[in-house]
């Protein structure tokens, strides 16, 4: 079986199991997974950037753009359909990245990381200073509908969970496919040797720019999913600690599979809620220690448990 088919079947199987498990899960778990998958989408975009050789410390910007676009369209333009709102979030974030990418695509390494962070902090500042968008408080998101059924009553718990699952599975599948195209194959080539990519006839800057836009679209979709699941958005989504957490999830999860960012995000959310519950004053310490343990024991990320056993390359 080819890698592409194995990944596709694995993702579909995980999706089916997760959907079937929905009635068995407590409300808090449904919520936790929905929020985690929203963040996992951002990490999926970061995975693509890391494979291109870039680490962005500003994905919170696109996360927030997606959330605010979906939230604003929901409450002001009365767009109700959740899928349409998620797509809108992705498109809005992609458009912002299309513009910022003109500058970002020229930079690499720490300069790229710092510039991406700078953009996200500018966005944070703008959101805090925008009374129309609720300033520091943000605003509540209008409940959305899935296929005409509103996020209310019994559906309130299941709808965001199923929406997040569907978006996550579709995005992971699409990204995996993209990485197997000629264009997708250029990402690791750019990371390894930009000079040679140019000498084989492709524009490195265009490749970087495109991957920035794709990563931003994923982050925007993640922001929209999170906004619909939580029902509230605020400028913290664009804050640099949020961006830092995305990098954290991506690195801890590992970059060898498109499923890894989601597994990593769910683990981080679980860990966070248990740590907060059992060690309300020292939960950051618990988190930090756990993450340190993972990094020391599995330098290739959590997902390397699977790839190592199969003997595959990271």
């Amino acid at each position, binding site marked *: 079986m080819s890698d592409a088919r194995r990944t596709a079947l694995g993702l579909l199987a995980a999706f089916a199991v997760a959907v079937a498990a929905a009635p068995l899960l407590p409300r808090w778990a449904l919520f936790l997974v929905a929020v985690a998958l929203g963040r996992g989408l951002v990490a999926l975009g970061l995975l693509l950037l890391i494979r291109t050789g870039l680490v962005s410390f500003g994905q919170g910007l696109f996360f927030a753009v997606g959330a605010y676009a979906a939230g604003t369209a929901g409450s002001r333009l009365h767009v109700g359909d959740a899928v349409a709102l998620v797509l809108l979030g992705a498109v809005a974030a992609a458009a912002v990245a299309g513009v910022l990418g003109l500058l970002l695509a020229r930079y690499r390494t720490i300069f790229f990381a710092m510039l991406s962070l700078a953009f996200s902090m500018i966005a944070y500042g703008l959101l805090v200073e925008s009374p129309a968008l609720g300033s520091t408080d943000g605003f509540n998101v209008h409940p959305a509908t899935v296929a005409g059924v509103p996020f209310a009553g019994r559906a309130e718990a299941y709808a965001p969970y199923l929406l997040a699952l569907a978006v996550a599975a579709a995005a992971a599948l699409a990204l995996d496919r993209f990485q*197997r*195209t*000629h*264009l997708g*194959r*250029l990402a*690791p*080539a750019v990371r*390894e*040797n930009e*000079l*040679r*990519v*140019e*000498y*084989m*006839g*492709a*524009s490195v800057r265009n490749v970087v720019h495109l991957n920035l836009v794709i990563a931003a679209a994923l982050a925007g979709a993640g922001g929209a999913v999170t906004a619909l699941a939580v029902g509230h958005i605020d400028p913290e989504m664009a804050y640099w600690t949020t961006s830092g957490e995305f990098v954290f999830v991506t690195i801890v999860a590992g970059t060898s599979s498109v499923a890894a960012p989601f597994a990593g995000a769910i683990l981080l959310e679980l860990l966070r809620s248990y740590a907060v519950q059992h060690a309300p004053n020292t939960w950051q310490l618990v988190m930090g220690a756990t993450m340190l343990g993972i990094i020391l024991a599995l330098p290739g990320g959590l997902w390397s448990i699977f790839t190592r056993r199969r003997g595959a*390359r990271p």
Partner: protein
Amino acid sequence: MSAILETEGLVKRFGAVAAADGISVRVEEGTVVGLIGGNGAGKTTFLNLVTGHLAPTSGTVRFEGRDITGLPSRRITRLGICRSFQIPQVFASLTARENLLVGLGIVAMGRGAFVGSGLGGEPPEEVADRVLDRFHLAAHRDRPAGVLPEGVRKLLDVAMALSVKPRILLLDEPTSGVSADEKFALMDLVLGAIREERVTVLFVEHDMELVRTCTERVLAFHEGRVIADGPPAAVLEAPEVRRLVVGEPGLREGAC
């Protein structure tokens, strides 16, 4: 015969140093040309100017009569001028096969295909396997390029340049870093593949025996100028070349 590559008064200055100091060369289609000269003579600068890696201070480069001076290297590559590197430029964590697929994929994209070959061409994966076979690289197919021995990486670098079917192939010291007894085998392999494709070849080489046997024409560089140009026997015997490039007789006897 028509000139496929023509440079006119190519000058490249780095501050007070002229790395290329008025290079005017016409290369006919289908010829194999050797570039010789000591370190810093301007051979690699010449390749960098032709491929667009460096913009000349003055002068022009024409490919099939078209002015390509100042075009970025990716555009020049797509026109059909490819090069290999003195230090192999491969994608270290990608396998040998994936290394080839990068360039072949770019060609396929040029034909509008995002997967497969486009326009009914041969699938890039099959081309890659054939190229690996031809360059005796099949055994290294699925190994990351970064762990391959230097000589094998060198071969892979040349294979990458040749795989995209260039009209002109520029090889920068294809045999440096390759052991003496493997040099001729490597050049046989490279030139054999090149003859099948009817490519015009310019290659930088320090091994005069190789230059004598493998080329039809030699350009001798010294201090950014071409000091001799002609058939290998004549150029290698020219007194100025012997003094400035090859070294006095006796010095290099038995070197290869």
